[in-house]
């Protein structure tokens, strides 16, 4: 019997692939797609304000409120802008670092740098955010240093600037690694060819290295952008009086108002933003660099 099944699989390669793939595909569909579908469907329901029970009838009320109430537009715009700012900052910091790691550093130094990049990921996310609170607050390390240098204090604790700095720090490793992978794959002969053709350092960087590294940068930006877009803990801990993210409004809708449908409706917004972002990223060849 066993031999016969084995034989059948051997003769029919597609069948074999199907047998191998179907369990993970099934799990993916059930866990991932079904959850997203449930989220999307519940966005069209509402909640009875008095009993907090879900009313299962189709309505666009949640989306209408999202559209008509300027607060939610402000919150969505703030979330997207900070995610974009964090992504650009990380790309600018990560490129020279990754370039040094991939093309200049000796293997020994490279190993040390790798450990340094990955080390923060082993510490708790919360501990690192709290550490930044200690650095940025009024009596913190930053103002102490500025004071010793005879400079005026920087009041950036509990502001959107503080969020931008903390996010940029936390997600930096997720940008460095794909950029490093892209830079490492550029054959040395391309750079030699550029030099042979008279390309100086900057010309080679602009015309050869950057275009070839771009898919890596875009791949990294998917991480930094989506991770910032979905976060809600950093805004609570280091944000100020006007620092709500989409995630915070979603959290409050579920936890304070028991309004799951509205939370689901708002959660569709970052989903759409990411969808558009991924389409652009695919155009730029990011998926070949992953």
């Amino acid at each position, binding site marked *: 019997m066993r031999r016969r099944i084995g034989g059948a699989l051997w003769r029919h390669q597609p069948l074999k692939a199907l047998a191998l793939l179907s369990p993970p595909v099934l799990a993916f569909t059930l866990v991932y797609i079904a959850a997203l579908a449930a989220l999307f469907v519940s966005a069209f329901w509402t909640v009875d*304000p*008095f*009993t*907090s029970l879900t009313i299962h009838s189709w309505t666009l009320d949640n989306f209408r409120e999202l559209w008509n*109430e300027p*607060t939610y537009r*402000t*919150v969505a715009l703030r979330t997207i802008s900070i995610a974009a700012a964090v992504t650009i900052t990380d790309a600018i910091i990560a490129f020279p670092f990754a370039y040094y790691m991939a093309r200049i550093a000796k293997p020994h130094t490279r190993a040390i740098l790798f450990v340094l990049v990955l080390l923060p990921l082993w510490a708790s996310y919360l501990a690192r955010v709290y550490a930044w*609170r200690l650095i940025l*607050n*009024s*009596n*913190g390390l930053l103002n102490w240093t500025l004071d010793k240098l005879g400079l005026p204090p920087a*009041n950036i*604790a*509990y502001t959107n600037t503080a969020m931008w700095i903390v996010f940029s720090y936390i997600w930096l490793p997720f940008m460095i690694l794909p950029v490093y992978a892209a830079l490492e794959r550029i054959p040395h002969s391309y750079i030699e060819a550029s030099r042979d053709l008279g390309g100086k350092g900057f010309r080679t960087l602009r015309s050869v290295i950057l275009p070839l590294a771009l898919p890596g940068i875009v791949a990294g930006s998917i991480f930094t952008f989506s991770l910032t877009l979905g976060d809600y803990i950093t805004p*609570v801990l280091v*944000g*100020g*009086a*006007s620092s*709500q993210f989409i995630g915070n*409004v979603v959290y*409050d809708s*579920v*936890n*304070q*108002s*028991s309004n799951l449908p509205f939370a689901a409706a708002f959660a569709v917004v970052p989903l759409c933003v990411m969808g558009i972002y991924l389409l652009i990223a695919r155009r730029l060849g990011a998926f070949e660099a992953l």
Partner: protein
Amino acid sequence: MTKRMWALVATLAVCLAFPAAGVTKQHGGTLNMIAWEGYTQPQWVKPFTKKTGCTVHAKYAGSSDEMVTLMRSGGGGQYDMVSASGDASLRLIFGKDVQAIDPSKIPDYKNFGKAFQSPSNNTVDGKHYGLSLQWGPNTLLYNTKKVKPVPTSWAAIYDPKYKGKVTVPDNPIQIADAALYLMKTKPSLGIKDPYELNSNQFKAAIDLLKKQKPLIKKYWGLASDEIDLFKNGDAVIGASWPYQTNTLVAAKAPVKDLIPKEGATGWLDTWMVSAKTKNMDCAMKWLSWISTPTVQAQQAIYFGETPVNSKACAIMDKLSKGSCAQYHANAPLQYFKQIHFWKTPVADCGNGQKDCMDYTKWQQAWTQLKG
């Protein structure tokens, strides 16, 4: 059977016998509770379990809204008890999430202060939905080195002088604080109760909060956040609980708190029993235990609040000298009267017109205020 087999069987039997013995001894059961952090400390939970055999599992909630959500989650049978504040208790009663109890079965009930035996936030139509526990004021906290002269009015947290140095709780019920201030400073609005606001009065309160927003450093969510803000000098004045003052004073921070001349909002917490509990016996035992003078005193000192059992005062002073006066457990009615206890804002607020803003509106306004 070999000798080794017999040894194995004997060991197994002994192993099984121990837990079995435990089960027969502990006929109490388990109470699943939703509580404020600090309300189920081992200090008084352990002796309770030892005495009654009822074990306690507590889940801490961060806000009244979260408590209501948790009590209703999964059809409502998951939790046996909740330590609800006044802004949650009516929602739970009208939502039929909790059940009435007979206070005459609680030995210490007769020792409760008169105001706490049947307060309107847990007693409806003469039925007692739970037992009052502890209460306290929402105070004005300030840094004694940075805030001069000493503030006497809530006007201080709306004063541009402290721009960027003010902090207030991240909680929709904070709207009542603004309403209380307007009630005293703008009588023309005709606010009688800071929790019963018509649309005009509500708008005035929101406008005041909008004007306050540029002064705010942070809307604090956890008590520890406010403690950090005051310790590090990021905030010098704000709305607070006595718990933060106690913690900051213990850490030698230069802070003081007071109840301003307008009075203050406050909380009165009630232990309530879920409508679907299967452990009524244990729940009643917990209510009796938690209202005894000793436990009342322990909790008051731990959390920095005021016990409802008038006999707790003497024990508080025994545990920590002067604590009875510090937490106003012996305060005259005058003190008590200036506190407006949290309650759930409802549309039908007793003026016969049903035109008050309900809590959903409060929540929406608060989300929009934070922006």
